[in-house]
């Protein structure tokens, strides 16, 4: 099992979620984050004072998937989240050793 984390543009969340459910992803956990990256922030002006805002609103999706799904999930996210403009975000893949479903106590793949 792997953990796939995707940092995407907020307005892409629905598209990505729909694309993922279509390929059979049944669960994910999402939260709002602020991203710093190549996409430069913007300047906000409050009463003449300029504030450089380096952190931009992004959405982080976290998903545990079986090893077989990894490639498909990545592809799907890439397709759905892409605008081609800087700041589209990243996907990170990392190892997960165990998954447990609290309700049933199921372990491993069954728990996903």
């Amino acid at each position, binding site marked *: 099992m792997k953990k796939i984390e995707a940092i995407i*543009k907020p*307005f892409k969340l*629905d598209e990505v979620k729909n694309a993922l459910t279509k390929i059979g992803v049944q669960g994910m956990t999402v939260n709002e984050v602020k991203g710093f990256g190549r996409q430069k922030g*913007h*300047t*906000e*002006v*409050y009463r003449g004072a300029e504030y450089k*805002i380096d952190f931009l609103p992004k959405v982080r999706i976290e998903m545990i998937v079986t090893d077989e799904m990894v490639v498909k999930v990545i592809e799907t996210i890439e397709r759905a989240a892409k605008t081609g403009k800087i700041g589209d975000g990243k996907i990170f893949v990392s190892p997960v050793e165990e998954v447990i479903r609290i309700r049933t106590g199921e372990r491993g793949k069954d728990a996903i």
Partner: protein
Amino acid sequence: MKRVFFPLPMLGLLMANAALAAESAPALPKVDTGDTAWLLISSALVMLMTPGLALFYGGMVRSKNVLGTLMQSFMIIALISVQWVIFGYSLSFGPDRWGIIGDLSWFGLSGVGLAPNPDYAGTVPHQAFMIYQAMFAIITPALLMGAIAERMKFKTFVVFTLLWSTLVYDPIAHWVWGTGGWIRKMGGLDFAGGIVVHISSGVSALVAALLVGKRKGFGTEPMALHSLPMTITGAAILWFGWFGFNAGSAIAAGMLSTSAFVVTHIAGAGGALSWAFGEWIYKGKPTTLGAVSGAVAGLATITPASGFVGPMPALFIGLTAGIFCYMAVMGKNKFGYDDSLDVFGIHAIGGTWGALALGLFASKAINAAGNNGLFFGNPSLIAVQALSVVSAWVYSFVVTFILLKILGWTMGLRVSEEEENSGLDLSQHGETGYSF
């Protein structure tokens, strides 16, 4: 019709004043302190309605557009106040031309002084009447903007607002309320702006929703309201201000203002009840958004009738308003145009129903300067009302359509897709609403 909305016995007096005033202005003793206090506080209340509306609308948009939405209302206060004192008041209430518009002889408020103008208000300073009316001119375009929330280009908005006020609001106000206005002369009644405010903004809102087009993602993405407590607060402020809107339109503190106050409150309550219970029956749960929307519907609907009908008709009008407007809003969801904050469904429908309902329920026992409606033995009033309503619909529709077409070609109506994604706050104003 405003001039005559205070107890008739005073009318003779006012005319006398007028004569006197002509002879020896300023005719100081003629200003009544109670009436003036009431009109000034009513003006303040109606002024507060526009920020109230800003919150009402602001809570209903996504948080990335909250400032853009609040800013529209706030800018309209600034823009239209200036437009009004420079030429808007003169166009609306100045000396009549052909029954359709005031001339520019009151440009820059010249001739609009502190002595009462008995044409409009015999017991209060003319400027008090002027500033009270300013608040109506302000809120009307602010209402309209709800239909095209979250996507209008700010620059175009500024130009549109100024032109719309001048070309749509000012003429209609003149027809209905200006001395010599054709609807007024015909006997069409509109106590506090069902036609002038709600129909004009509501019908124009529909045009705007159609021409500006849907929000990106409309119908496919959830567009959750970002703060219902903000919307509820706004609705409460609107209700509070509406007492000034309707009861202030008596332009005096007395029996007529009391009657208008009472029926306003009752209709607001009725609208809230019927919308919320309608939802409860039809959708399974009464919502807070439904309750406050119903209140606004009830208040908008009673507006034209508020100085002409009694409490029980008001309850009926309020209850039916909640149902009709709820149905209209449901209808929108079927037709699929994106009148984002339901300006048409609430204000055009409410204003229309109210203007017609007064043709049924109006009674000279409430307001001797008004008229009797169908149920008080006068079937003709409703025909006059219908003609007034239709004229306002057609005029608002056509002029707003042409205006937006021209602005669409020249300046563009919408922000770019990318700006819409990032939100109006950042793209139009370089600001962010919240940072908790």
